[in-house]
């Protein structure tokens, strides 16, 4: 979707403000939102693409107003209800509905070390999936406007670059986010000149590398 999350190239967002001695979490609730999301993730009720999609679906005014972990909280509540893991009524009351069966969490404390540092992504090696392109070829990012989740940023659409590297095989976010299958395909690092992306005012020595899936590209 052409959402406000797709903000590469926007102006007006102010200066970057690094913080000295930044803590990992600024407030306790932030850490709880983060680890609740990770712990619930162990139920595998949704995948990473769905997770990203539900951040993007936050209405633009709210998305920009919210802090990072406020977005995570909004997503968690939304997906818990959507997947039927909790009901709206339970969220409202903060307690399980009368007679609700108590589940057994798939992630226990002894499982944490294995899970906490593991991104849980399948191998990107799959000889059965053929690449459409190879390093050195000129490609154009398609001018498409998917209504759902997608990982081809607007600033790259219709722009021409060169395949820098074949990164191997990954799930296709556009279908995977909506449960329409992983549609595994090659992802390439594509090198674009800043001038192609932003016009003649850009530095001729600036380049942007974007990881793009086979389905986002055509020969140019």
């Amino acid at each position, binding site marked *: 979707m052409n959402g406000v999350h*797709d903000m590469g*190239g926007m102006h007006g967002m102010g*200066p*970057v403000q*690094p913080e000295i001695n930044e803590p990992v979490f600024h407030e306790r609730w932030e850490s709880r939102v983060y*680890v609740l999301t990770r*712990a619930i993730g162990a139920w595998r009720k949704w995948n990473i693409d769905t997770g990203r999609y539900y951040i993007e679906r936050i209405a633009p005014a709210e998305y920009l107003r919210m802090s990072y972990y406020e977005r995570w909280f909004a997503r968690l509540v939304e997906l818990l209800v959507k997947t039927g893991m909790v009901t709206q009524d339970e969220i409202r009351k903060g307690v399980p509905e009368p007679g609700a069966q108590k589940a057994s969490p798939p*992630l226990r404390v002894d499982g944490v070390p294995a899970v906490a540092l593991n991104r849980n992504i399948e191998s990107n090696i799959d000889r059965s999936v053929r690449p459409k392109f190879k390093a050195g070829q000129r490609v154009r990012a398609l001018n498409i406007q998917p209504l759902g989740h997608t990982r081809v940023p607007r600033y790259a659409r219709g722009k021409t670059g060169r395949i820098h590297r074949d990164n191997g095989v990954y799930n296709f976010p556009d279908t995977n986010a909506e449960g329409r299958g992983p549609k595994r395909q090659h*992802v390439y690092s594509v090198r674009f000149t800043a001038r192609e992306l932003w016009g003649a005012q850009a530095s001729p020595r600036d380049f942007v590398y*974007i990881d793009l899936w086979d389905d986002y590209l055509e020969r140019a």
Partner: protein
Amino acid sequence: MKTSRRGFIAAMSSPAPSPADAAEQQHGHQHQTVPSDISLRVKSLESLLVEKGLVDPAALDALVDTYENKVGPRNGSKIVARAWVDPAYKRRLLSDAPRAIAELGFPSVQGEHMVALENTGKVHNMVVCTLCSCYPWTLLGLPPVWYKSSAYRSRAVIDPRGVLKEFGLDLPANVELRVWDSTAELRYLVVPERPAGTKDMDEEALAGLVTRNSMIGVEKVKSPTQRVVR
């Protein structure tokens, strides 16, 4: 803290009090005088999920401990320091990062889908995720707020040299600048240049010089003398 995360609300150029500022202040005051609404909501959700048996409270605490104390930029620093002292290792790291990272005893899964990018006097790499907040957290810990901010995400691809200047790095015009937008599951680790004046330092001491920001590519690693001077 609020300030840095509200950078994007820094409204107009003039310091005139605008309705926006007023609204912000009002909002801020509310959160100071009453317990934070979001904090209560999160607490309520956590207790619900625990009661429903969907999460194990001990696992939650262990997760917090892991992210607060067990991952962080020092993992990345060790890899960079090794690359600095061992040219053969650096070659392996640049050509096959997952394997090279696994060599150092990190669980191999951590290194999967990782790409190492070498900064030199001729080429500078920096990393952004314009669409969300993708970051090599298995090696660097959770990303800083600025990395996840609208300001960085919007500007890193269209005004990378301006962003670097704000980090104190005035990149010479003849240096090639490569911005990596992490749109997929690849994660990028920048291997910064080894600074001058470090010939006599051992691997551990070198690792101590490597900053998180230098491994994102928004600053250089300062030489120990520079650090003293500051």
